[in-house]
């Protein structure tokens, strides 16, 4: 039988190529282009090779922002993943409670991100904010504009409030997918609640948790709008995460060259850690390989 060829199908795929080119490839290549040039103004640019990359990698403020970012993402993961799983375990499996709790959980995910920052600014203001007034009323001085620790607590709390529902929804879907027979067998085997969790739930949730961890890591590593609206990166540099630092460089100081170089480094860091997480999670519990 002759092999049948028809290349007209490429024309049908062409629009996708064009769209992706304009929205992703060309901007990316533009950034790469900027990263190897020194730009003084429109039309005035000089090729500088890898100078910006070397600068970025030795910039002290950038390193500080990087460590803050790792700390932030680490805290977020450590709090959100277990909390999300616990919430999913507590959610009703049947009846009217199911759609009700699902909608309630989804609400924080629907709010525009800068609005979330605004909500939390007001919420924690010591003079008119519900939380701020309550805490200060209890005698604990709390001001996220003045104290770096308070700012951190507020930013982490805001982030957890915002995104834990995503982990909870993913975990809930994963839990519903476990056949009832596993739980029944565990009961017959006399397994305690902890043993059931460890030997039935966690292994079955591994796929879902991988997705949840990867998503939360990437999102929290790239976070911009919420902390920027809430603290502007302050007090001082206390909550200046990587993206805020980058934007200050690029937009504030109009240093497009270094900013572009740093963007690429940023992208590669996220890629590297996502890959590391993925490999680690795939290998957990694999043990013996044939």
């Amino acid at each position, binding site marked *: 039988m002759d092999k049948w060829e028809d290349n007209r199908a490429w024309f049908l795929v062409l629009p996708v190529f064009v769209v992706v080119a304009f929205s992703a490839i060309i901007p990316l290549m533009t950034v790469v282009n900027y990263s190897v040039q020194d730009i003084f103004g429109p039309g005035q640019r000089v090729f500088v090779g890898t100078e910006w990359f070397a600068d970025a990698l030795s910039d002290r403020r950038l390193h500080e922002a990087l460590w803050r970012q790792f700390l932030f993402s680490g805290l977020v993961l450590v709090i959100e993943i277990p909390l999300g799983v616990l919430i999913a375990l507590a959610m009703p499996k049947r009846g009217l409670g199911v759609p009700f709790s699902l909608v309630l959980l989804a609400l924080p995910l629907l709010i525009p991100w800068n609005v979330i920052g605004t909500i939390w600014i007001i919420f924690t203001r010591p003079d008119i904010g519900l939380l701020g007034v309550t805490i200060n009323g209890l005698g604990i001085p709390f001001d996220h504009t003045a104290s770096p620790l308070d700012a951190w607590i507020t930013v982490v709390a805001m982030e957890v409030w915002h995104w834990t529902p995503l982990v909870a929804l993913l975990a809930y879907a994963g839990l519903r997918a476990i*056949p009832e*027979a*596993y739980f*029944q*067998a565990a*009961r*017959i*085997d*006399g*397994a*305690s609640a902890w*043993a059931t969790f460890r*030997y*039935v739930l966690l*292994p*079955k949730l591994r796929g879902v948790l991988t997705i949840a961890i990867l998503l939360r890591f990437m999102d929290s590593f790239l976070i911009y709008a919420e902390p920027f609206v809430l603290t502007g990166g302050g007090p001082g540099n206390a909550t200046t995460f990587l993206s805020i630092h980058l934007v200050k460089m690029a937009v504030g100081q109009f240093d497009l060259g270094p900013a572009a170089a740093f963007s690429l480094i940023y992208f590669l860091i996220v890629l590297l850690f996502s890959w590391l997480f993925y490999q680690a999670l795939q290998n957990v*519990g694999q*043990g*013996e390989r*044939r």
Partner: protein
Amino acid sequence: MARIALEQVAHAYAEHPRSDAEWALKDLDQVWEDGGAYALLGPSGCGKTTLLNVISGLIAPRRGRILFDGRDVTGLRTEQRNIAQVFQFPVVYDTMTVFDNLAFPLRNRRIDETRVRSRVAEVAEMLDLAEVLGRRARRLTADAKQKISLGRGLVREDVAAILFDEPLTVIDPGLKWQLRRKLKEVHKRRRLTLIYVTHDQNEALTFADRVAVMNEGRVLQVGTPQALFERPAHRFVGYFIGSPGMNFVPCVVEGDAALVAGARLPLAEEALAAARVATGRIELGVRPEHLRLAVEPAKGAAEVTVRAVEDLGTYRIVTIALGEHVLKAKLAADRPVPAGAAYLSVPPAAARLYAGGRLIG
């Protein structure tokens, strides 16, 4: 080892069942003798799995009591009953080795480790799992996983009965008979009460000493495969057991024979006596295997028309018309099948009478 008794057990899944149809189990009174191998046979939706879950404690029945050796266990949770259950779907703990899987029920009950090791070794040897004890359970085939599920039930010394919910459904057909044979071996060695749920009558009839046929929430008959075949107590049992099922035709008993579509079919004395006291519509039931077809008329034979013949290798299924009634006969492949008109005789010993769907004689 346990004698399991069900007293007036009824269960409905709906909160407030409105009609009879919503009751999954209806007024069940049943005793499963100690050490017996029972098959629970019935069509889908008849309540077999519900009954199994009521016995094991995964479901609490709406009404009635369950007794193990005379002890009321209705209020006890599953873990407190001495029951093991093997599900349709092989359940193994993915992150553990085969050894740890088998040891799990014992370790949960805080048995000391030397005892655990010896029990696991014993059960692994019985189930031919000794070579794979060190392997991860999730990497094994479905039939090995079902053996592990069975093994988790056997390691426990306090297990009185093992319940099986269609355990061979996901097993390759070629391996099913091996597992069935293994189950019979285990039964012989340990003499546990086994209750095996299935909708496949071949499985039921080959595995069990006694078969309970269920339909629509009721147990219609419990008996040896022979008894179910020869003397089905209920119309449904006659229809369900055997392939094809029993033939039923309405008849009127007159004198010493049953009148069906103008033909007189002689009956045995026992059936005649029962018919005399019976009320309501009477039906004649006879298995396709017992029908005889001849070209020549004979005493007590009815004239019939042969409608179709299906050749299935070692036997033939012949569809015949007796008046407006259609019957099926199962004849050996070497017997000649008349074409067109023929004469059907029913041996009186094989003819059963049913009134209101129940066997009367």
